[in-house]
């Protein structure tokens, strides 16, 4: 590798690689950058293409906050996302435990039935579910948003893989000490797998926060809807107040972006491991 032309070629190809990656990164990040920058520009500057505001302002946030019930929608979104994440984790932990702890009749079939649900698109089942929620009088309620989502097939399958790797000998040992099945789960397995469970939880939280289809159907009033549904209604009513709109969009993305800023390594890993749903 001592000849200079080889070195030069290596350098050239390395530069090319970085150039390609920088271009891709730019494509990925620029829209978000533009969202934040536009939201911080005063009205007079919004239509200029300057890459930074000449005068920074939070006016757009104030006007977004005042023109739609932003506080309520953020609280709704947080409530729904937390409740969904917690119930989905809880039900999935129980299911994953059952599948990995015992051999029982029909386990393969039941696992298959749970796993196959990813083949059922939301739009195929939305009308019957909508009818049930309407019949219960749960439209425009948080209950109507949360209850249909208390179990996640994705969470079950992810946790199944996590639980499978848990050493059987530790379970046996706890069992010999007289621990019940329930306490084996929560005293022995759960504390040890806390990190993986948390990273699956983060994924579930992001999914719940970003969900749009179900709130779109179930909620009609802004003050009862989640951030995503509210943002869509804002777009269709005040679509050309760009500064305000970008402020609302930034707020609707903020919790997820903050999570990502802190935990991007885990988030990326669990997405790559877990596929899309």
């Amino acid at each position: 590798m001592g000849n200079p032309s080889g070195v030069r070629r290596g350098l050239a190809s390395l530069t090319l690689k970085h150039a390609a990656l920088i271009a891709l990164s730019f494509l990925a990040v620029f829209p978000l950058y533009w969202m934040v920058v536009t939201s911080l520009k005063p009205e007079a500057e919004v239509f200029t293409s300057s890459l930074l505001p000449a005068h920074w302002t939070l006016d757009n946030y104030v006007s977004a906050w005042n023109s739609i019930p932003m506080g309520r929608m953020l609280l709704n979104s947080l409530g729904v996302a937390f409740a969904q994440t917690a119930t989905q984790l809880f039900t999935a932990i129980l299911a994953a435990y059952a599948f990995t702890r015992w051999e029982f009749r029909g386990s393969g079939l039941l696992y298959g039935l749970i796993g196959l649900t990813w083949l059922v698109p939301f739009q195929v089942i939305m009308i019957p579910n909508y009818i049930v929620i309407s019949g219960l009088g749960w439209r425009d309620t948080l209950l109507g948003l949360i209850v249909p989502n208390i179990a996640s097939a994705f969470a079950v399958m992810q946790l199944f893989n996590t639980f499978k790797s848990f050493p059987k000998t530790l379970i046996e040992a706890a069992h010999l000490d007289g621990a019940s099945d329930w306490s084996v789960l929560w005293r022995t397995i759960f504390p040890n797998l806390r990190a993986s469970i948390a990273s699956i939880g983060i994924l579930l939280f992001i999914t719940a926060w970003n969900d749009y289809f179900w709130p779109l159907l179930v909620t009609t009033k802004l003050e009862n809807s989640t951030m995503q549904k509210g943002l869509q209604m804002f777009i269709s009513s005040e679509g050309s107040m760009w500064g305000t709109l970008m402020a609302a969009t930034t707020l609707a993305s903020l919790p997820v972006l903050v999570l990502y800023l802190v935990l991007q390594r885990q988030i990326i890993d669990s997405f790559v491991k877990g596929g899309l749903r």
Partner: protein
Amino acid sequence: MSLHQLAQPQVAPVPDVKQRKARGRRLRGLKPYLYLLPVLLSVGYWIYRPLVQTFRLSFYQWNLLPTSPQTYVGWQNFQNLVTLPEVGKALANTLIYTLGVIPFSLILPIIIAIATDNIGKRSRNIYRALIFLPMIMAPVAVSSVWRWIMHPTNGILNQLLMSVFGLEEPIRYFTDERWAIWSVTFITGWKLIGFSTLIFSAAITGINKEYYEAARIDRASWWQIIRHVTLPLLSPTILFMAMLSTLFASEWSFSYINVLTQGGPLSSTTNVYYLLWTYGFQSFNVGVSSAAAVMVFVGFGIIALGFMKLTKKLSFFDN
């Protein structure tokens, strides 16, 4: 609905020792099912029950009002579907979305992943974090941002194209029927490309380096190594991503269609999922919507089965 409460039996206080033995064996057999109950009830009630109901509703005529009657019409809804002109349009558009997303879900990610293999670890992590960002963004927020960037007169994209590249007429990305579907496809792909790239990078990193060594000793050229070593070893991943993108491209584009174009202009951006939506919740034609849902479910189900078969066939490549 008290699905939580139904999950409770297993926390009931332990019965005293005498009863324990008698009931013990029976309970032991039931235990796994009790632990599974919450998930099974939820999945059964919120996914399989509605699925069956959709099949049933596809044979009825109904306008979604609880007070109005459901009339049995046999196969008529399906016959209507075949004759409706927008169905053909929606099917053709579904195909466009499916094929249009492939460069973003397969071709570019594979090229980028191969080209950027063995780059320094630290810079790789920085790129990963940046490229992945669109994946975690909410579809509505993504629509909102691109709607601003691609605004015909005030958006920065047209401003740039006009000032730097001498574009004369501003492009109306979402209201020009020649452009709209490609704009929506692009946004769908934009959200996906980072994720796919990372999946392929991870797969390439997992390839045993000895294969490359062996190929290099055989004096294989760079292209021969990619063609005969990398790509075959990547084939399970390629198949997996191809399946995901075929099955879900149209579903992913739904949010962008609903927020940005509502299927227009002149139904140039509608697809099968959006059609279900408009039949169900705009024209309140539950029968036709359910019939279309059945067709979509069966159609994509067959495609999924095909992919699974292929995966099984190819899986021996892995070892």
